[in-house]
């Protein structure tokens, strides 16, 4: 079954593995919570990369944490989606000149979607995820 059809099924029930270690976590909580409720779209947070289809990497990543994140990405069953949350994953954000944080996430992990913002509001996160849904619908 080629990837497009697989993605169509995957989009209907996206299980999210959250790799937050900074501001991103405080923004994903309301998305899981009652007001923005991502479960409406069949998305639930899961605890192990084996169950996950979408890896959300929020906030800056240090040299040490990016190695773990790479290993987590490799341990996820494919097809999987990676979302870089916040300007820290795009350009290092306010840590642009720090000796310890990585500057661009896609040098280390193939990223499918960047959501800008420091940190991005829940509406921005949902809008980003909706764009993945729309893109998969158009392709299939």
């Amino acid at each position, binding site marked *: 079954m080629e990837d497009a059809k697989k993605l169509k099924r995957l989009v209907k029930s996206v299980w999210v593995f959250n790799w937050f270690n900074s501001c991103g976590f405080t923004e994903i909580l309301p998305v899981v919570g009652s007001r923005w409720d991502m479960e409406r779209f069949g998305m639930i947070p899961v605890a192990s990369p084996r169950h996950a289809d979408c890896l959300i990497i929020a906030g800056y990543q240090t040299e040490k944490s990016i190695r773990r994140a790479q290993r987590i990405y490799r341990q996820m069953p*494919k097809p999987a989606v990676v979302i870089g949350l916040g300007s820290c994953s795009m350009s290092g954000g306010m840590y642009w000149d720090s000796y310890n944080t990585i500057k661009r996430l896609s040098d280390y992990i193939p990223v499918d979607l960047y959501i800008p913002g420091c940190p991005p509001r829940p509406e921005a996160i949902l809008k980003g995820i909706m764009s993945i849904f729309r893109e998969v619908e158009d392709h299939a």
Partner: protein
Amino acid sequence: MISTGMGSWSPLVFLICVAFISVVVQIIRSLGEGGFRKEEDKAEAFFSGGRLLIKNRVMDVYWGFFDAMGRYYGWMKRMHNGIVNDYVYWFVLLVTVVIGVVILL
């Protein structure tokens, strides 16, 4: 057909049904994707991104029991204090209780 006075069970029918159900479940299972593409450390155990230094040993299994049932082990250990005449008292007590029940009912 095995039947004790109170209940009955026929293993043959049970096995036939289980065989049929396993055919159904195998159909469901075959709908799914069987294997996976091997990658660098994709098939290693998930340990929050770290590497598992100590392999999973069977002897760690009992940790769960002692940890969860700690209070009951402690209570029982206190009972088995090794003093023989305590054991004898327990034995005598139990025998009287059993005889009492047998005589009463």
